């Protein structure tokens, strides 16, 4: 009954109260869920380190040199995406597109690094997902991370295109910032993947 809700509205005057924004809460929830998802793959990887009965393992076929370079690319892209968000907030379109473009390049470089590493593992070491435990855990963990990087790149690329066609302005800052949260998450997960696969899995840390 309308009368009831009318009197409810009048029941007690209140100042506007703070509520967390929908988008931010939603993205935080998504990231939390993804942490548990990746955590499971990391646990599986660490659980099986050193338990292989046959075949190439992290100790024998992973080289840490190139991956450090590609990791620096990915981690730096977290800073460039922050610069992009700040530029958008100040309505500096050219700077926004520059920093976003740089983010795309750095993320793309990381994916190139993953492709080259997988190519080497498959062609030179004949390591496949079915070869042994290392193959199963390595390809699924690194592969799911790379898949998330590609998802992030797709959305960032979409934002870049929208901006080029003039459909993105400072009023969209919060949306772009949410994408940048996701991008930071992908970077932070990589720190854990890197530690597990390239430091613990190779025996550098043990």
């Amino acid at each position: 009954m309308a009368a009831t809700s009318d009197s409810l509205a009048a029941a007690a005057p209140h100042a506007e109260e703070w509520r967390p924004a929908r988008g931010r809460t939603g993205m935080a929830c998504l990231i939390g869920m993804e942490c548990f998802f990746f955590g499971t793959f990391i646990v599986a990887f660490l659980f099986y380190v050193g338990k292989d009965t046959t075949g190439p393992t992290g100790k024998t076929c992973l080289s840490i040199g190139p991956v450090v370079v590609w990791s620096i690319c990915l981690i730096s892209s977290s800073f460039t995406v922050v610069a992009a968000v700040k530029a958008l907030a100040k309505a500096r379109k050219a700077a926004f597109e520059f920093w976003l473009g740089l983010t795309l390049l750095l993320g793309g470089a990381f994916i190139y690094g993953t492709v080259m590493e997988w190519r080497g593992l498959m062609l030179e070491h004949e390591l496949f997902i079915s070869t042994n435990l290392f193959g199963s855990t390595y390809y699924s963990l690194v592969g799911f991370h790379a898949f998330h990087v590609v998802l992030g790149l797709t959305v960032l690329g979409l934002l870049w295109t929208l901006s080029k066609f003039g459909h993105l302005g400072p009023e969209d800052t919060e949306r772009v910032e949410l994408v940048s949260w996701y991008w930071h998450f992908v970077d932070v997960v990589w720190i854990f993947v890197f530690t597990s696969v390239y430091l613990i899995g190779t025996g550098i840390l043990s």
Partner: protein
Amino acid sequence: MSTLTTRPAEVGAAVGGEPLATRLHRWAVTVDHKRLGIMYVLSGLVFFLVGGIEASIMRAQLARPANDLVSPEVFNQLFTMHGTTMVFLVGMPILLGMGNYLVPLMIGARDMAFPRLNAFGFWLFLFGGLLLYFSYIGAQGLYGTAVAPDVGWFAYAPLTDRTFSRGNSTDYWILGIMVSGFGSIATGLNLVVTILSMRCRGMTLMRMPLLAWMMLIVGLLVLAALGPLTAAQVMLLFDRNLGAHFFDPQEGGSAVLWQHFFWFFGHPEVYILVLPAFGFVSEIIPTFSRKVIFGYPLMVAATVAIGFISLSVWAHHMFAVGMGPALNAFFSAMTFMIAVPTGIKIFNWIGTMWGGRIRFASPMLFATGFVAMFVIGGLTGIMLAMVPFDWQVSDSYFVVGHFHYVLFGGTVFAIFGALHYWYPKAVGRMLDETVAKWSFWLLFAGFNLTFFPMHISGMLGMPRRIYTFQPDRGLELWNVLSSSGVVLQAAGVILIVWNLLRSARKGAVAGNDPWDAWTLEWATTSPPPEHNFDVAPTVGSRRPLWDLKHPEDPDGRYE
């Protein structure tokens, strides 16, 4: 004229002359949380009937020793599909669906935070369920085509390995659950965001109805539990289809790791299934005791505590695996610990009823039935938390009895209580009270007749999941009792379904607030308009409708 004003316009419109296709189309494209909630509950109830039929066939097979009504192969499919259906296609969708319907109304919001995501989640659940059931037509297994999954609802490795589960029926299990799991993640996320971000003015966290609190924790648990389940299912899918070795002991993989992953999902899942039930009961008992809930802050604290502790009790499902004394002791202690906040809730419900003016209307019958049955299930749970006792009865009918007291006597009774309580709100008409009472007592008697003897047959040594048993082992009596209870339960369920269907057209018109309740959903019409409230409400206490009805003595000054 006076009858027209008391009768909500929506009832007339729903019955009105639109062609069926138009009305169905409107349901198919809806993003309204109320319509989605109703669709969740209806599809969940259909799956409930299917899962119930599966259970009835199993009980018929076990009614007498050395029976050959169904073959062992069919029996394996029956218990797998029964468990999977009841957990993933009945419990989760009905509970999340009722949260979907009720939470925005209770916190004074117009809709869920992300209405399109909400619709997406529902359709993922429904098609995930249909995909699982398509295995009955399309899947291939060890024994030919058209076979459902037969690996049990927790699908232990290495039974799920390609070597032992040929064909693709196990893949149907993985993919069906995974797809509906994505739907649950979407809905869980939506609930959390809705509760945190969409509350009306004055609705502080500590003024929220307890159901909203429980749904908040449930949403968070869904996010924490479904991620690992999806990850583990991906690994299993890789094992089966790409030749990976995650759970393959022959290549050094660990079958026990699957158990850890599955139960890391599986135990929070138990609380995902029971916390909303706690929420329903925490709304029903105060209304029908004419008192405020006893110890609201403690109820909230207990809910949060259950949320946290439920993430570290999972391996009490694995005492018989041989984890060693340290892990056994840890998970045993954590399981004892989670009984404390759960016990607090029981005392608070009893404290609410204590000295109240109790009306035993049908929702209250189901709610008190819930409290009694859940206490029994909780107590046998504490027994099972003792490692040496668990070793004796693990994987026996004692365990089957235990978790049916929790999930049927607990969750399902609370769901039926909630259906009887909120049906007038959603449909605009009252359920027939006499039929409702008959269905409760039939269900209550049948439930106890079926599941109480299982504790005894389990302690006598009857293993769960066995398709038959030998005569002269002292098991005949307990099994025939269990099976005969099914008849009463079926009668109860049929009465409920008949009541739900018939009352939609013939029930007495409900009005806005048939139970003289206090939470916001009763402030709007029954059924509510698409926008829920004509004016965004403002609340000043935990019982806004009490304040409205008793302006001389508002609640706020006592909270």
